């Protein structure tokens, strides 16, 4: 093995060791993605899975508790999450086949700002400024343009490990958001690249991403947050 390959292998192993989030799937149903986007800021979905079977009223109580522990939801988001939890993780969840009709809704026009609100703000905050030492800012973040598809990979597969953004260090675990559709991922990447002071940082030659690119990357089975970390490192010329 060449030294470079060895280093790559060692690095991957090192990153894999801190695989701190669980790739837990909840039953498919409307607004599941919103649950994924909001609940994983503080804990894995395993708490939800282990709690499955409690009543809608108990989920309502849990959402009150979670607000006390720092969860911030708009009223419409809260209602949607409660609907999902009370139905799909309630005492009598519908049989699996009943939820399969969902993809039809994905054909509707996707709003990047709405996806951002549901999927990104719980960690990166509404103003995209992030949280010091915890979550990196997306605002004025030149890394969004490291390559045409870099942010798509981050959203699809997650990112985990020590990184530096605008001179500040972060060491957190972003879970994969592959539960989002190709359209949604393309829309949110384009939205973030075009807002929060990022538009001015965009290289002239870099085009908006489309759903086709997302689909193509999604097809690369076995890609992990560790691979994205390595890709980022390569794009940054060995730094992080």
């Amino acid at each position, binding site marked *: 093995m060449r030294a470079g390959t060895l280093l790559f292998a060692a690095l991957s192993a090192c990153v*894999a*060791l*801190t*695989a*701190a*989030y*669980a*790739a*837990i*799937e909840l039953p498919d149903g409307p607004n599941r993605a919103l649950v994924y986007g909001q609940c*994983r*800021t*503080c*804990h*894995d979905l*395993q*708490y939800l*899975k*282990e*709690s499955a*079977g*409690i009543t809608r*009223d*108990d*989920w309502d*109580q*849990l959402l*009150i*508790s979670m607000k*006390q*522990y*720092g*969860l*911030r939801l708009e009223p419409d988001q809260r209602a949607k999450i409660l609907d999902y939890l009370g139905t799909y993780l309630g005492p009598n969840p519908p049989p699996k086949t009943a939820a399969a009709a969902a993809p039809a809704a994905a054909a509707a026009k996707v709003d990047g700002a709405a996806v951002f609100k549901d999927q990104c703000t*719980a*960690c990166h*905050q509404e103003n995209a400024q992030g*949280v010091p*030492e*915890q*979550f990196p800012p997306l605002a004025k973040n030149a890394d969004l343009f490291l390559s045409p598809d870099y942010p798509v990979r981050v959203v699809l597969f997650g990112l985990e490990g020590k990184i530096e953004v605008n001179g500040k*260090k*972060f*060491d*957190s*675990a972003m879970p994969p958001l592959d539960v989002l559709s190709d359209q949604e991922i393309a829309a949110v990447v384009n939205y973030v690249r075009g807002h929060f002071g990022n538009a001015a940082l965009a290289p002239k030659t870099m085009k908006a991403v489309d759903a086709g690119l997302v689909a193509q990357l999604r097809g690369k089975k076995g890609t992990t947050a560790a691979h994205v970390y390595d890709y980022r490192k390569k794009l940054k010329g060995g730094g992080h």
Partner: protein
Amino acid sequence: MLDRSKRTRMNRRQFNVLAGATGVALGAGLPRAVLAEGTPDSATIIKGKESGMIVHNAKLGVMETPLKDLRKHAITPKNILFNRLHFPHPGDSAWEATTAAPSDARVKGWTIRFDGLVQRPRTLTIADLQKMGMEKRVSVIQCAGNGRAFYAAEKKVGGGQWHNGGMGNVEWEGVPLRPLLDSLKMAVSDKALWLTAEGWDQPATPEGSDFAKSYHIGDHALDHAILALKMNGEPIPSVHGGPVRLIIPGYYGNMNVKYLTNLLFMAAQSPSVFQSVGYRFPNFPVTPATFKANDYTIYNSRPTYAHVIKSVIFSPLPEDKPKPGNITITGVAFNDGNAKITKVEVSTDGGKTWTDAEVKEGMSPWAWHHFTAKAKLGKGKHLLVSRATDALGRTQPINGLARWNPRGYEWNGADHVEVTV
């Protein structure tokens, strides 16, 4: 009146169901059943933990010990000790996912602030503490949610579904709290009624509540408390609260604040959600219909302070598949350390008949006490039960569901394990 009798009948019926056909769910079995698909192995979540621990939340490093491992050790080693943290660990602002000690740099820069209603606030470093006289305390450390899964027989409670493995028998070593506070000569105000301990780990969101615990200044449990620097003879592992953890022997895990950074003399208890709403137990018996998870106030409930008396059967476990004939039933019993454990009774017929087990005194009043009983089992299913009693007459409810509470704390029902011979 009618409601009450109805409820009693329901409990009775549910208990019979639980003690009968599904009795195994009550006991020590099913460790693998709670493993969710997609959850990484414990050894990859926290470096130094054994593979195969029962993971409740990877992101928070929450895991319990399979009883087949827990029973092997008089003192629970760090590689299998249960773990529970409240905040994820991004960046330099929280726990390192390892059973190794915190880094030298972290230890060197560590300070503990003694402040609040005092005339002379103080700050100590780890080096300062290391120069002081240390004492050892062997104590059970137990998650207040240990056994939460068993409450499901009345009504399932949300949260990590702990069985019996959220506990361990651990030797701590550190500086005794009260003499230390006296020696600092802070001139504490008469208005200070509470001592609040705060940890250094921080919530993931700006709106989250910081972790803090408050104790009455006169609490006798504090007489035995130490600012612990060592666990089982070595620096406290990062995930278990190193470099310094407040250890109050006989108190539930959450009361033993990890990563201690502040001890504050206060007129009132901390407004932290972890003190004022979370980790509390109602002051009176409640039912799912009468008391919800957010009905807790500081007036109708108390923090989960001291271990209620408890016993856990370690052997035989369902997976031991005992052969017909003479068997030995073993396990541990413990309480808050305020009275001797005087008796552990064991039953092999679901509680119809009982025999006294032999109880070996623990390493300290707060440590677990091993019990042993001989029994003869024929072919078939047997429901083993254990129940501890102490010198104050405190004992375990035969039906632990009598203490059902909406957040699922302090399970101490007589332990039930169904084995098939």
